[in-house]
């Protein structure tokens, strides 16, 4: 059964390049293309693809907004964000908006195909160039305690230490201590890396992040 793919990108040449790459894969079926966010939303609604490749920067509605719209609509569509940008906060924003993956437009055709297959099966795919932290780091992370996991999840949702502390009825200092321990166990240098690594190692699931 073919994976039905939809592509939204406002740049015609990149869109054409993506289409050409996807056509090489026999198990992909391109069900639609759009050059802005509003048109994209309309086509997603009518075609309900398995995977929607969405450019983050688009006229009309941007990719993050569109991903959120798809998630909130409850449509069985996995969104995979595409961008020319290597900003990790784009990844954070996309994942928080419900996107299943994040890929640079300069990724190879093989990578693109792999990403689409991964998210179509319900997994998450994070571009290794964006998440440079992954490179050459195939460690097995130490197990996080429940409290550490809770702190990590709340922090990943965008809560401040103060808010996390209030939510868990612990002190701000304790939250920071837990975070430091999480960074240490995952080999992360900051919140974003911690979240990306936790998703990668399966310490935290996308569902937990979106709850």
């Amino acid at each position, binding site marked *: 059964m073919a994976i039905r793919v939809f592509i939204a990108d406002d740049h015609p*040449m990149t869109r054409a*390049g993506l289409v050409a790459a996807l056509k090489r894969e026999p198990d992909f079926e391109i069900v639609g293309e759009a050059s802005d966010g509003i048109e994209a939303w309309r086509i997603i609604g009518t075609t309900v693809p398995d995977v929607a490749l969405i450019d983050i920067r688009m006229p009309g509605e941007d990719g993050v907004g569109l991903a959120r719209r798809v998630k909130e609509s409850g449509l069985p569509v996995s969104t995979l964000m595409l961008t020319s940008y290597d900003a990790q*906060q784009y990844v954070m924003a996309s994942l928080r908006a419900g996107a299943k993956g994040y890929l640079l437009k*300069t990724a190879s*055709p093989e990578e693109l195909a792999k990403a689409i297959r991964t998210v179509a099966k319900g997994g998450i795919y994070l571009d290794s160039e964006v998440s440079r932290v992954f490179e050459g780091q195939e460690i097995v992370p130490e197990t996080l305690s429940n409290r550490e996991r809770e702190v990590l999840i709340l922090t990943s949702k965008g809560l401040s230490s103060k808010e996390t502390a209030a939510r868990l009825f612990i002190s701000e200092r304790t939250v920071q201590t837990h975070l430091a321990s999480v960074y240490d166990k995952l080999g992360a240098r900051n919140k*974003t890396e911690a979240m990306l690594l936790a998703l990668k190692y399966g310490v935290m699931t996308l569902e937990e992040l979106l709850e």
Partner: protein
Amino acid sequence: MKRRLLTVLALAILLPSVSILLAAGVGIYQHRQAIRVVARTYVQDLAESTASRVEMGWGLTESLFTAKPPSRFWGNRFFSQEVGIPGWIAVLDAQGRVVMSTPGAQILSELWRPQMPIGQAVEARNRAGEAFTVAAYPAGDTGLFVMAAVSWKELLGPMLRFGLLLLLLVGLVGMAGLVGVYLLWKTVISPLKSLEAEISSLEWGKDLPRPRDEAAVTEIGRLREEFFHLAQTAIDRSILWKRYALDLVRVQEEERARLARELHDGPLQDVTAMIQRARLFAASGVAEPGRSVHLGLLEEAAQAAVREIRALCDELSPPWLELGLSGALTELAERLSRHLGLRILVEADSGIGEGLSREKVLALFRVAQEAIHNSWRHGGAREVFIRLFMEEGSLVLELEDRGNGFDLPADLARLRLQGHRGLANMEERMALVGGELVIQSRPGQGTRVTARVPVP
């Protein structure tokens, strides 16, 4: 002389006035004493000589007792011919009744005192309180007395009046002089002083002096008006200058954002498409094995171009600013902490800064960027703490380090004059979005930068 002008002026008026008053007073007193002596001698002599004549020549004749003395009474002749001093002579009996007198001599009976010393002039006052010098002398053994008197008022009157008038005039001149000095102080010296005080304490380009001084003389009033206009112009100029600076920042940011957008939407996408095509071509297996090396090099060059264009975009105006303040600051913090080797912590409550205008996000972002660089470059800080929170309807961005700190100049504009634009730039950026910037620092105490923008 310069400082004590008023004292000198007052003394210049007072000293002559007072000395004239004193000298004239002493003169008048001495004159009075002299006249007193003359008047005494005079009435004494008059009384004595008249008495001897009465004793010798006239005796107690009938005619002397008549109520109407002969018209050619010697007394009249005596007065009219020999002296002009106003006075009276009368012959009295032992009971003090007037036997014979010059006209108007009734006054003498008022001056008569029973215990009056004989042959000696005394001062006496009549009922009206006027002063007289009186002398009585017995006319031999006839039992009669001769009494003579002169009136002080008549004798000294004009002299005394003019003397006192003179003193009064001198006094008035002195007073007028003092009033003049007072007016000089009130309308010239004091307004000049207050004008001078205002000028010296005025912050040029910020404060205005009082536009008018009602108490001042016209010339000083004009001077003040001119000064007011100058200060007004300075304020206008500083406003204009500020607006100009803000326009510069705004235009620059707009231009940078436009360039970044152009780069992103144009070259970046084109090169990306090139890479895609190169990869597709390589994957198609059409290229001869020997040529695929070149294809690989082409792709590498294109990847390098993508990275450079991205870096250029980030330098100009990062597209990820659109992620909102919290996301943009986190991205900035993570990037700078990698590049500078700093530990940067961002603490932001969830949802803070949502819906904040792009201008405000950009302004706060630039402040953070500058402040982090300052902490690293000048403060030698190892850690920077960034906090984002709401306070009294304002969004507050606080950056704190425990670096070296520095002595903060009172006026950031002064730093700009010395070529340090950073702090002044931060202040201008906040002003541009209606916010404010506070920098707290002390050597050895670290630095805290607080940026505040009103949130609608």
